[in-house]
């Protein structure tokens, strides 16, 4: 996977094919908003094309329903390499609200597993969470694939420091003794059994 500041996936204009895999149309309306006058992503060389044969980037929406699966795979096959995918919305990123539903594959990572079984390699992917994401957030995703912006979101892990020995933070006097007595009683009952 590409690191920040590394060689961008595309140097020139990116032509975008919008692929709906059974989305609720919320994300699709935002994709169209991206090309509307207020955001107008065409000023940056991103163009919406009607055929997968002309596209560099797939703007992918939806949790991949079983009905849509064969057509999605066909569209992925039709797009010439090198290609990239911008997975828009929570459904495409991780299955979203449908992640455990009976009639969906469940997001683009699950789709890649299906495609791997068909011998298709995994294309480089940008994930844009949101339900739906703002048009600006989608723009940010497309431009991240082009290397025009840097990734801001990072994994955050917080690990709490273990406290000192004993029951810390006790406000009542003699509580430690009470706890010890209770523990002793429990142990006594256990021993008698």
């Amino acid at each position, binding site marked *: 996977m590409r690191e920040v500041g590394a060689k961008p996936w595309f140097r020139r204009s990116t032509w975008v094919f919008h692929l709906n895999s059974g989305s609720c149309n919320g994300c699709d309306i935002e994709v169209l908003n991206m090309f509307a006058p*207020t955001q107008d992503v065409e000023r940056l060389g991103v163009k919406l094309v009607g055929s997968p044969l002309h596209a560099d980037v797939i703007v992918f929406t939806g949790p991949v329903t079983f009905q849509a699966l064969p057509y999605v795979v066909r569209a992925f096959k039709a797009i010439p390499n090198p290609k990239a995918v911008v997975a828009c919305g929570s459904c495409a990123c991780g299955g979203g609200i449908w992640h455990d539903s009976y009639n969906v594959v469940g997001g683009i990572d699950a789709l890649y597993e299906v495609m791997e079984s068909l011998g298709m390699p995994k294309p480089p992917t940008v994930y844009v969470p949101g339900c739906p994401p703002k048009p600006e957030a989608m723009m940010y995703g497309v431009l991240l694939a082009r290397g025009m912006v840097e990734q801001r*979101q990072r994994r955050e892990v917080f690990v709490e420091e273990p406290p000192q020995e004993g029951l810390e933070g006790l406000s009542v006097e003699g509580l430690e003794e009470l706890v010890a007595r209770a*523990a002793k009683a429990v142990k006594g009952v256990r021993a008698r059994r």
Partner: protein
Amino acid sequence: MSRLRVLIEGLSKDVVTEKYPYAPVEVPEGFRGKPVIDPSKCVGCGSCVNACPPNALSITDEGPYRVVRLFIGRCIFCGRCEEVCPFNAITLTREFELAVTDTADLVQEVKLVMARCAACGEPYAPLREVRKVAERLPDELRALAYLCPKCREVMASHYVSFARR
């Protein structure tokens, strides 16, 4: 005449297109962006996990830690977690530039130390949560908060059976 008026109106207005990637964009009032857990406030009670519709939040016990895991890739930004959190530990910020090239970057984890039972020594609940519960209990029952549920049962039945002693 009306066409002239439209022309004048069109010329008098400014450009509507944003300069977005080159200039920051204002998000509207009440915008629900990236959810963030404040690790200093979270007690690991799991009420947000119950409320989360797409199960973006999950809670697991991994050895001596209770892990609250937030996967933003599945979050639908509904704000239910913010509503139900009793300690206001989780909030939705105004941040929306969340695009990543790897889903591992969409995860936030908070690992909280578990309290160990005073009798059997097994970890049973986050220490912070136990302290909060102990604060609310009356003095004579406070010791029970430091026992795990099983030992507490034993203790309770012991008191019921041998109440006279």
